[in-house]
Each structure stands twice: as structure tokens, then as C-alpha cells.
């Protein structure tokens, strides 16, 4: 991530497009240069060779008559490049004939031995392209040379005519590219404006006219995010309202009962009110504990898991809650044949089992039966809590696990959080929960099942 000020997309695109265009142009120019030079060399070389051939043919007939000592013949200048073309004819080692612009020395040093063909030589600071050949007779050498600068100037002229319009067109092209990119990124700009103009709290979906297909995933992702945040905020708002409601209720009860105790003159009635005040305190304590459990669960999504023996763990929970059952004249049974290990967090699984057994005791009438079993079959471990209580209506069992949902008319003062905790713990352990009617006891049956651990099966 770049920490500097953000670069403009428009600027980037224009720069990139122009850089590519200029690069391609330069490459084209370079190719033109090499190609033109090669073609030019071939063409002009062939002209040199042809000129030499003409000279050779002429010399064969005229050599003897015009054998004047190195005298220059001014070949007529028929073209603007003509002065740059020169020839020399040597006869028996002497310069027999040369054009006026030809140097007095041999175009190719002869002491190195005579070679026919093309050569590039430096004479008096000038570069020459020379074609050497034998005349009709053995002792006649013909040199036709051309100054390299003429070739360069031709080449330049060719390149010039190609590059000049390009160079002229470049600023125009830059403008055109800038305009095109400006038009192209308009939807982006519109989206940016629409986002900038949104109030910070707004969570309604972003709608921009004429967005491009590339922007659709972006806008969709953004709208999805807004929606999720909205849902989250709504659920948080509801949670806060519900939590306030649930926390106030026991406090209201404590306060009222305490005031009743204060105002009561009858001793027995006052003791009664004080006892109820304590009940309210217990309820508030339980609610706060449940809230804390839930918030810890939600804060720490991945607790450490280790091999846990479900049988031992559930047995302890049942033992812990047995006095409650006895107090309500309920029968609480525990059944498990063998150790059942599964990967889990002991404290959380204890909370899960305690909530389920506690619910069964709480919402079953006196003299009801509550049976807790730990079973395993086919590598799966199951905790089953059944009761002979009234069970649940279909609509109510679907709402179990909503925070603060309490089965209406149950007359019990639960926190409404037990099932939220159970579901959360089950999710953390990847356990499945099934709620139905107990075939054996007639009341509610809660099955919690999951993949067993190493020692199981």
C-alpha cells in the first residue's frame, strides 16, 4: 500500500496509454530506420556496381585514346546527389581517369592487394562506400565510390518524413486520450461522488446510474457490506434493548421486594419479602453469569479444543444439579455405558450440559422425570437430555436460541440466554442439535451429537 497521496486513475491511464503509444512509435521508427538503411544500401550499392560496370565497358573501348595522365573528367552533375559520387580508373598502377570530385589517392589502398567488391573506407575524414572491379583488361582497376554522408542524408530524409507527423500528432493524441479516458472513468467518478455524498451513518444500498460491468462486483460487495452492517447493528440494538429489559427485571423485583420488606409490619410477611429479595438477587446473578458466558463465547470464537470424556463431564453436571431435582421432587437419571471422548473445551461443554439439564429441570413440573444419556454409535457421540415435561410447540422450538427468548407462559424466571449459549457452544464444537419430542418420556428431547474423538469407536 502506498502511503502517499493517491494517484489519479485518469492520470495513470493517460500516462500508460501515451507511454505505450510512444514506445510503439519509437520501435516503429527504429525498425523503419534499419529497414530503410538496409534497402537503401542495397539499392545504392547496386547503383555503384552498375556505374562501375558502365565504366568498365567504356574503358575497354576508350582506354587507349584517353589515357591522359590522371586528368579529371568532370562528369556532368545530373542530380543533387551526383557530386557525392566519384570514380577512379587505374591503368597499369596509374590513375588513368577520375571524376572531378574523386580524391587523388586510390579510394582503396592498393598495396594491400586488389580486391573486387564493396568496401567502406575513410579518406581525408570522409567516409566512402566503394565498389572495386577489374576493367576489361587485367591491369585496369575501376573504383566507384560514394560518400556515406549522402546515404545518411537520404536515410534522414526518409525518417524525417515518417517521424515528423508522428511528433506533431503526439500532443493531439495525448489530448484525445485524455478526453477518452475522462469519458471512460466517468462512472467511477460518479460512484466516488455518490459515496462521498452519503451520510456516514447511511446503510441503504448504493445506487449509481450507468455503472460498468467492472464496477458491478465492487458495488455489490459494498452493498452486501452495508446490508451486513445494517443487520449487525439492528441485532446489536435489539440485543442492547433486550439485555436492558432482562437486567432491569430482576433489579425491579429486588427493589420492590426490599421496599415491601421495609414497609411490612408483620414479621412473617417481612421474612417472606426478604426471602424473595434474595431470590431476585440469585436471578440477577445467574443472568449476569449467562450474559458473561455468552459475551466471552462471542468474543473468542475459537477456544482450544482437547480430548474430553463426555461421560465424566456430564456425570459431574448431573451430580451438581441433583439437589435441585430432589428439591423439586423430580427424578434425575444418568445413563452412559462407556467413556465417550470427543475433541472439545471442557468448560464450554460443561456449560452446554448444565444449561440443557437445568432447562429440563426448570421447565418440567414437580415429580417429572429427566433422563440424561451419553451414547455413541458409528463413531458419533451423542448427548441426549429428555424430560417428561410439557414439551414445546413447533413455533417455540424454532425460536429457541434467540437471545432472551423465553417460552411464553412457562412461569419460570430463566434468563432467556441458555439456548443462545448452548447453540453457540455447539457451533464452536461443530455439534448438531436436534430438538423433538421424547419417545420414552413424552416431553422435550434434545439431541446434541458430533464426531467422536480418537479413542472412540
Amino acid at each position, binding site marked *: 500500500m502506498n502511503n502517499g497521496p493517491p494517484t489519479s486513475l485518469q492520470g495513470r491511464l493517460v500516462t500508460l496509454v501515451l507511454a505505450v503509444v510512444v514506445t510503439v512509435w519509437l520501435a516503429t521508427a527504429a525498425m523503419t530506420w534499419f529497414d530503410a538503411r538496409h534497402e537503401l544500401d542495397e539499392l545504392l550499392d547496386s547503383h555503384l556496381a552498375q556505374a562501375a560496370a558502365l565504366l568498365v565497358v567504356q574503358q575497354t573501348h576508350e582506354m587507349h585514346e584517353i589515357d591522359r595522365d590522371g586528368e579529371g573528367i568532370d562528369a556532368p552533375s545530373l542530380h543533387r546527389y551526383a557530386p557525392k559520387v566519384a570514380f577512379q580508373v587505374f591503368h597499369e598502377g596509374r590513375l588513368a581517369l577520375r571524376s572531378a570530385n574523386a580524391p587523388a589517392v586510390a579510394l582503396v589502398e592498393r598495396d594491400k592487394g586488389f580486391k573486387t567488391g564493396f568496401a567502406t573506407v575513410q579518406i581525408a575524414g570522409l567516409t566512402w562506400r566503394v565498389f572495386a572491379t577489374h576493367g576489361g583488361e587485367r591491369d585496369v582497376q575501376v573504383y566507384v565510390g560514394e560518400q556515406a554522408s549522402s546515404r545518411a542524408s537520404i536515410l534522414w530524409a526518409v525518417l524525417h518524413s515518417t517521424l515528423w507527423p508522428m511528433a506533431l500528432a503526439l500532443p493531439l493524441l495525448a489530448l484525445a486520450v485524455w478526453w477518452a479516458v475522462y469519458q471512460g472513468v466517468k462512472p467511477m467518478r460518479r460512484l466516488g461522488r455518490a459515496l462521498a455524498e452519503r451520510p456516514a451513518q447511511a446503510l441503504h444500498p448504493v445506487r449509481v446510474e450507468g455503472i460498468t460491468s467492472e464496477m458491478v462486483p465492487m458495488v455489490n460487495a459494498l452493498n452486501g457490506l452495508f446490508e451486513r452492517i445494517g443487520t449487525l447493528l439492528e441485532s446489536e440494538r435489539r440485543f442492547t*434493548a433486550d439485555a436492558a*429489559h432482562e437486567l*432491569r427485571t430482576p433489579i425491579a423485583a429486588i*427493589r*420492590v421486594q426490599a421496599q415491601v420488606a421495609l414497609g411490612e409490619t408483620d414479621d412473617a410477611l417481612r421474612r417472606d419479602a426478604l426471602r424473595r429479595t434474595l*431470590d431476585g438477587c440469585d436471578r440477577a446473578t445467574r443472568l449476569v453469569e449467562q450474559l458473561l458466558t455468552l459475551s466471552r463465547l462471542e468474543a473468542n470464537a475459537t477456544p482450544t479444543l482437547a480430548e474430553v470424556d463426555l461421560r465424566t463431564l456430564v456425570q459431574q453436571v448431573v451430580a451438581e444439579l441433583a439437589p435441585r431435582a430432589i428439591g423439586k421432587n423430580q427424578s434425575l437419571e444418568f445413563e452412559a455405558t462407556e467413556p465417550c471422548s470427543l475433541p472439545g473445551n471442557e468448560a464450554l461443554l460443561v456449560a452446554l450440559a448444565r444449561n440443557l439439564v437445568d432447562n429440563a429441570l426448570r421447565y418440567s413440573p414437580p415429580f417429572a422425570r429427566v433422563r440424561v444419556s451419553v451414547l455413541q454409535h458409528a463413531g458419533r457421540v451423542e448427548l441426549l437430555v429428555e424430560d417428561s415435561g410439557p414439551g414445546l410447540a413447533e413455533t417455540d422450538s424454532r425460536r429457541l436460541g434467540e437471545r432472551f427468548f423465553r417460552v411464553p407462559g412457562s412461569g419460570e424466571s430463566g434468563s432467556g440466554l441458555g439456548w443462545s449459549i448452548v447453540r453457540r457452544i455447539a457451533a464452536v464444537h461443530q455439534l448438531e442439535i436436534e430438538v423433538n419430542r421424547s419417545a420414552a418420556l413424552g416431553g422435550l428431547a434434545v439431541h446434541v451429537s458430533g464426531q467422536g474423538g480418537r479413542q472412540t469407536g
Partner: protein
Amino acid sequence: MRILLAEDDPLIGEGLRAGLRQLGFHVDWVRDGEAAERELRAHPYAAAVLDLGLPLKDGMDVLIEVRRAGSAVPVLVLTARDAVPDRIRGLNIGADDYVIKPVDLHELAARLRALIRRAHGQPQERLRIRDVVLDPAARTVQLEGESVALSAREFDLLHVLMLHADQVLSREQLEQHLYSWGREVESNAIEVHIHNLRRKLGAALIHTVRGVGYILPRDSKK
């Protein structure tokens, strides 16, 4: 004053009933919305304390139904929900007061008394008719500036008659105002209390309309 308490939480309901009784109210306690609506239609309560989150029928719905049926009974909504939209909605659909839990018992009683007083067009806390002054909060009665000792039932009967001054109330109506359910009312109880009130406050205060009931006129010109 006989009031209806609709509250599903056993601990709070129990406490409010006991506490309001200590403060001189006769409290009928119901635990669900349907019972609340039925009782409000059936009896002339001086006021009702309504929890919103009631089973079977939400408190708001109870209030809407009761108001639609034409009842003007003062309703105090008692709830743990303090969100402003909830409060506005509650007041809009006809609640007379909106109190957030937890509430002070004495404050609740004072608010109920104020609601009852206002429902009878009574701006002052104390009721005064001729030489008789009744203080509902202190539960005291004065005659020509002198305190008069009344039993709880006599006080309540006088309170009802003073609130409904210039209206003839039958014996049955008075019984309904004075006794919460489950209290055995002796057939001549009202006559006995009227007799005692006349003895303590003067025979001219309460008139008997033969065959109909009793009336406490505002002015003595008769």
C-alpha cells in the same frame, strides 16, 4: 382504590401487589394479557398497571383493545423497555403514564394516585368537599381542621364517594370499587361503613337515594 396489576414476572408481581397493598390500594393481579383485558372490561378499576411484555397478548394490544372499547381507565405502563420509540408508541395509543423498571414503590403509588385524581378532574392532591378534607397520600381525613380516625375501609369508601361527588353510586358499584377479588363481602358491609362515616363526619354528608344507592353532594344546599 381498586387497581389492576398485569405483570407476568412472579417476583415483581408478588412484590408490587404486596407493596401497593401496604400503601392502601386494593390490587387484583393478572399474569397475562388476555386476563388483563377481560378484567379491565369487567370491573370499574380506578387505574391499571400494565406490563408490556405479557404472555398471550402484548400489553400494547391490551391497551389498544381497552381504549377501543371506550374505557377511560387511567393506565400506567410499567416496562423495562426504555427505547424512546417504545415510550412514544405507548403514550400515543392511550397510556396515561410510562414508567421504566425498576420503579420506586412510593413513586409508583404517587403516580397512580395522580392518575386517579386527574381522571376525576381533580387538580389538587387533597380532596375537599365542604368541611371534609381527604389526603389520599397520607390517608388522613380532617373535619373542620380536626383529624378524624377512620378505618381503612371507611377511608376507601369516603375516597370513592368524594371522587364521584354528585354521582349516585349503588351498593354493588361501591363494592366493586372497594373489594378486590376473593374477598368475601358481607351483604350489609357498605351500610355499616356508611353508618360509621355519618357518625364520624356528620349525618348530612352522605345522602341515601332510596332504592338506588348513595350520593355525596358537592354543595349542601338541599
